[in-house]
């Protein structure tokens, strides 16, 4: 071939244009979207929350690096997905969760939830939730110990259980709560209050986040807005939260109409507990959700319905995590029954 050409001509195959959005960018933007939620949680719960977030982040990054090295893959920390996992994990833990248990959760989340399956894109369940579900089963007491927010001195003093010695039981927080909390505040979450006492927390409190709960789940409004940012940048599939909200409403509304003394209103259902965080940031983890429109809607619906069923009829007060995990497990099956009809495919073929 003639070598007279001065310039190097590169040979590539077609699609010479590329949409200016990459995995790394998506993941980075999810991290951005989570930062306000983290900031609010630190404001609400103080340095304990900050320590929790930092510890899970560090653990997840180290675990990811370790497993990449062990399995001979290039280090994949740079794609930011591990940071999302870490942040979401921290946001779903109670504020006074012992740090050593958070390390366990982070290690399990990345090790068992992600690296074991080959890393980004191959995991079968949401890694952050795998981590949380593991510690929930391992340390059921610690993970259902809630402490109130906005206590005085939260920026200089840790919640006593936070600093438990590794492998040792955390200190009891009852006394601490009684000393620090505002009047009558027991640290019970709105869902527990509703379920066991039939006391319904006002929707305004749920929206603004002045209630007890996991580090990052308290302010439904803030989470919703941050999620919207992602939806508008098309980095998150808005159909999933929409289907979840629909599923929640469709089950809880008739129940509420039937007996509003026992069953909470759909609004309460939507804004309490981890539903908003779960719907906006966790159910939308694309790796473990179906891809087709019908699939995605079905998936969201399953999560919504399961969440309400577990909350109202199950042993737990909170159902989002398990609902998402079960839906993750279901998603290959959902995908296989919701493959779209391709262009030009004959009707009878589709039916047979």
């Amino acid at each position, binding site marked *: 071939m003639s070598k007279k050409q001065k310039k190097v001509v590169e040979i590539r195959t077609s699609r010479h244009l590329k949409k200016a959005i990459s995995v790394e960018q998506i993941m980075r933007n999810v991290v951005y979207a989570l930062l306000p939620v983290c900031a609010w949680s630190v404001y609400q719960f103080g340095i304990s929350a900050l320590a929790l977030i930092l510890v899970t982040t560090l653990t997840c990054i180290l675990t990811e690096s370790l497993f990449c090295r062990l399995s001979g893959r290039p280090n994949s920390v740079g794609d930011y997905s591990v940071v999302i996992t870490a942040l979401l994990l921290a946001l779903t833990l109670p504020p006074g969760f012992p740090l050593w248990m958070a390390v366990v959760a982070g290690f399990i989340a990345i090790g068992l939830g992600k690296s074991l399956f080959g890393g980004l894109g191959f995991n*079968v369940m949401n890694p952050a939730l795998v981590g949380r579900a*593991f510690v929930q089963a391992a340390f059921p007491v610690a993970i259902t110990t809630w402490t109130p927010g906005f206590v005085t001195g939260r920026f200089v003093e840790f919640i006593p259980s936070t600093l438990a010695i590794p492998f040792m039981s955390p200190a009891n927080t009852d006394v601490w709560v009684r000393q620090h909390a505002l009047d009558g505040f027991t640290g019970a979450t709105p869902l527990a209050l509703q379920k*066991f006492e039939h006391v319904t927390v006002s929707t305004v409190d749920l929206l603004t986040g002045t209630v007890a709960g996991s580090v990052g789940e308290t302010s439904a409004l803030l989470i919703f807005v941050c999620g919207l940012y992602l939806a508008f940048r098309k980095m998150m599939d808005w159909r999933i939260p929409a289907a979840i909200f629909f599923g929640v409403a469709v089950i809880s509304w008739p129940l509420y109409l039937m007996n509003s003394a*026992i069953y909470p209103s759909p609004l309460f259902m939507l804004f309490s507990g981890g539903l908003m965080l779960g719907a906006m940031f966790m159910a939308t983890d694309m790796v473990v959700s179906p891809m087709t429109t019908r699939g995605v809607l079905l998936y969201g619906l399953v999560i919504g319905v399961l969440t309400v069923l577990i909350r109202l*009829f*199950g042993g737990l007060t909170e159902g989002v*995590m398990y609902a998402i995990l*079960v839906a993750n*497990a279901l998603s290959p099956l959902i995908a296989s029954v919701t493959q779209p009809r391709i262009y030009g495919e004959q009707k009878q073929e589709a039916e047979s």
Partner: protein
Amino acid sequence: MDPNSLTFIFLNAALINNFVLALFLGLCPFLGVSAKKETAWNMGLATMFVMLVSSISAYGINWILVKFDIEFLRLICYIAVIASAVQLVEMAVKKFSPSLFRALGIFLPLITTNCAILGLALFQTFREYDFLQSLAFSTGAGVGFTIALMLMAGLREKLELAKLPSVSQGAAMSLMLAGLLSLAFMGFAGLGGSHA
């Protein structure tokens, strides 16, 4: 909900105390036949079917055993009668519905002497279920088994396309998957109990 109600027995056997994921019964077929959705589905159907047959036969035998006060022969009778009942039904199916037989046939002999089936019969006896309760229990167990099997098959098919690390291929991976499923199913704890 009343712990003896049919719905609760069904739900309990299908989800809360799922045979595979919570009680560890029937792991061999669970691990052996969950690689493909299609086989998993057929296996699930076959298991449901055998469970129903053995539940009914166990109920009958137990009645006789109690009547004659020879409960010490229970184990031997259960295993013998279940195996023959399944064999008989298998022959009937083969005769009357060859297509159904083709779908279930190869699995039936595998299942007959399997701990999920015997476990089902023993549990229903220990818990002193009456006939309808036994039916609810066995259908619940069968449905639960099928659900677990299908979920597992879906996940394993998905992982076929993944770039698994070399150490986590094979049985270890299946067990870890089962563990994750079992973890997820913990969410069903207490479902249907009244907690108000």
